[in-house]
């Protein structure tokens, strides 16, 4: 197992290098002069040639491309992503809090998603074909198909304006979590509970279940065994759900004015704040690679057969 982990980690290093290079190159392909972007982003009303030349020198844009890349990469390794073009503050001081805010929202959502998916998946599998199974699948189909901004608007109007129970937006207290988490959960639970359900169903017909029943094991114990085996599939999906959520909360964040990564990234993209965009893309890519590796490891821990593949 130790060797497996070392190999897996070694494989991610070149991948991360490629990602970082692509991130850097993409931003450098932009047709606009970064110096001009900086000045426009700072709201300077009139930009002169002299000012552009001065800003280029300040940004170190006169250096060759590869040298700039390695300087940037070395700095990134120390969490120094440069300074924002707009505010001039270090990127990390802006991205850090936004990342934490999104992480809070993501973690609370993922806990709700996992809990609900497993509970609904198990219940629907055990009651397969019954009224409960059918209605849960029907309702979830309807809710998953609904765009999250529409659901968010409707829920905010009903719970915040009409019933006056919850805040419409912001991140003021634990009550602020209820609406965004529900909206996020609704769009994911509908997909994930089906994975748990179908995995449970395929396990239900396995020999060990028949054997367990024949031995007279209590139904509760058998269900737990099925669940444990079924979760192997779900774990890789859930593992990847965290980075997926981290990168896709933008709609919910924007509707609920949640000061997270999504809002920040859109703002940075619109104002062409390249250091912010680079850091954002890099962090998300690293999150994807890490969580992917992590779920591979989890699966390898649960299923020794997988360890031989590498």
């Amino acid at each position, binding site marked *: 197992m130790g060797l497996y982990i070392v190999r897996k980690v070694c494989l991610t290093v070149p991948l991360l290098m490629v990602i970082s290079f692509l991130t850097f190159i993409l931003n450098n392909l932009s047709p606009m002069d970064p110096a001009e972007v900086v000045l426009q*982003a700072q709201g300077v009303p009139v930009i002169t040639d002299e000012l552009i030349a001065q800003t280029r020198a300040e940004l170190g844009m006169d250096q060759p491309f590869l040298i700039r890349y390695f300087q940037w990469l070395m700095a990134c390794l120390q969490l120094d992503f440069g300074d924002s073009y707009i505010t001039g503050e270090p990127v990390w001081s802006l991205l850090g809090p936004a990342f934490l805010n999104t992480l809070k929202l993501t973690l609370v959502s993922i806990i709700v998603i996992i809990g609900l998916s497993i509970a609904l998946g198990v219940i629907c599998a055990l009651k397969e074909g019954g009224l409960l199974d059918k209605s849960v699948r029907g309702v979830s189909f309807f809710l998953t198909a609904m765009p999250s901004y529409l659901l968010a608007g409707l829920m905010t109007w009903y719970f915040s304006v009409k019933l006056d129970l919850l805040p419409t937006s912001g991140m*003021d207290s634990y009550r602020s979590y209820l609406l965004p988490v529900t909206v996020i959960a609704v769009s994911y639970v509908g997909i994930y509970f089906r994975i748990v359900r179908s995995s449970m169903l395929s396990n239900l017909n396995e020999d060990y279940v028949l054997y367990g029943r024949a031995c007279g094991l209590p139904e509760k114990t058998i269900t737990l065994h099925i669940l444990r085996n079924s979760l192997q599939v779900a774990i890789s999906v859930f593992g990847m759900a965290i980075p997926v959520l981290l990168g896709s909360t933008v709609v919910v964040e924007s509707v609920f004015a949640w000061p997270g990564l999504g809002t920040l990234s859109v703002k940075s993209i619109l104002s062409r704040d390249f250091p912010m965009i680079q850091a954002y893309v890099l962090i998300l890519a690293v999150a994807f690679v890490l969580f992917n590796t992590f779920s591979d490891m989890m699966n390898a821990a649960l299923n020794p057969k997988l360890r031989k593949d590498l």
Partner: protein
Amino acid sequence: MTGRMVVWMIVLLGSVGLLASCGGDQAGNTGAADQDQELVYATAKDTNDMNPHFYAGSMPAQGMVYESLVENTEDGIKPLLAESWEISEDGKVYTFHLRQDVQFHDGEPFNAEAVKKNIEAVQSNASTHSWIKLSTKIVSCNVIDAYTIELVLSEPYYPTLLELSMTRPYVFLSPKDFVNGETKDGVNGYNGTGPFKLAEQKVDQYAIFEANETYWGGAPSLKKITAKVLPAGETTYLALQKGEVNFLFTDDRGTDSLDVEAMNKLVESGEFQLVRSKPMNTKMIVANSSKLDSPVHETAVREAIWHAVDRETISQQIYNGTETAADTLFSSNVNYANVDLMKRSYDLETAKQILDEAGWVLDNGDAIRTKNGNKLAMKLYYDTHSSSQKTQAEFLQHAWKSIGMEVTLIGEESTSIANRRSTGEYDLLFNQTWGLAYDPQSTVAAFSSTSSYYHTTSGIEKADELYKKIEQVMVSQDEETRKSLYADIINIVHEEAVFIPITNGSVTVIASADLQGISFKQTQFELPFERMQFE
């Protein structure tokens, strides 16, 4: 297995509780809008860096915290932090007598020394401020006595007081907040002299301003103003309905957070009032007269475009009557702009006739006019984030097609449109004048600036004469000469039809029905919150 699952469940539930409680300490901010004398406004843009010697911060927020020496009012320049002033005969020395009862928010006295430090801090970063011509004219700032300051210019410059009255950069920050005697590399705090002081700022969430109880002009009635960052549209609308937000106004880019229909609904509910300022600026289409490979460099083509803009329909249908049709670049309430100009009304037949006379003809069966084998085709650039610009562009495209003109619409980011304006890579683009406090002098100065309207104006026949007159008007000492120079300048650009006016924009406020004293300043970028109070 069961035991382990129970432990996991407890851990999971615990973490939910822990995470959710992380933000618990700010619970007091929610739904507080209905408290006495607390105004909460929604803003799509964060208040950002409040350093008044830079341009990244929100102007309405900076306007609450900082003040200038003089104020631009409807009746001209009035005293603010300077009680009175004298201008030397040669127009090069301005002597200001400062108010003696003013303190910065941190308790530091506001005096001649503080003024000198601030002006010098701005001047030391002159290249950033070169758009404001005063920054290129200031030679020195001298302390005469504790409350008298002298500003020496290299040559007479008539908009000196106007430019000193602007929201930035010539406003005053406590010298204690300076870093190494400068403000260009960041500041330690945001202490101004204004009626409100910045109490708390949370990036992308909110900024709280508290009343300055020792304000020299008397403590404001509103005790707390919160600028809440909310995305425009539905979220802001719901927050207003719930009462989490009780104030909304046109932002410093001229964009409203709500569409006209939503505003009307709020007003119909009886809980909100809508107040609109007089016209503040002119929204227009800028035509590139220097682009020789485009038909737009011909005056006749630009005139035809002008005649083919149905301003009344745009005003009534697209803006629902919230903006009025504009027939000239500057509306007549702008200083020096009350000039008699030939009106070019909406008339497709005249437009066609002008094109015919200029040699742009429709061959049998063609939909697009041609001249010497060249098609009458152009590109119009609009800001993708402005829904009204896109609608107008589509509307105009249709109208122009009927006179035999093909216009391709291209939506781009505002930064990229600004870039096109400075490089001259455009035929037509949407733009707006800078607003009452800046018009006509700043917009006119921009006619000859390479990063602004140089490409718009440099292709016209009288370009040299225009630039010469702009130079002259800025240093003119005599009111009559100035009037006549401005009249000439406005006449030249009007005749050449390079700035094609569409509508006059104003500042719109949506506020709780019980808010009194809503008024406007000369600038579209600030609001006088200190005059407002809840009943």
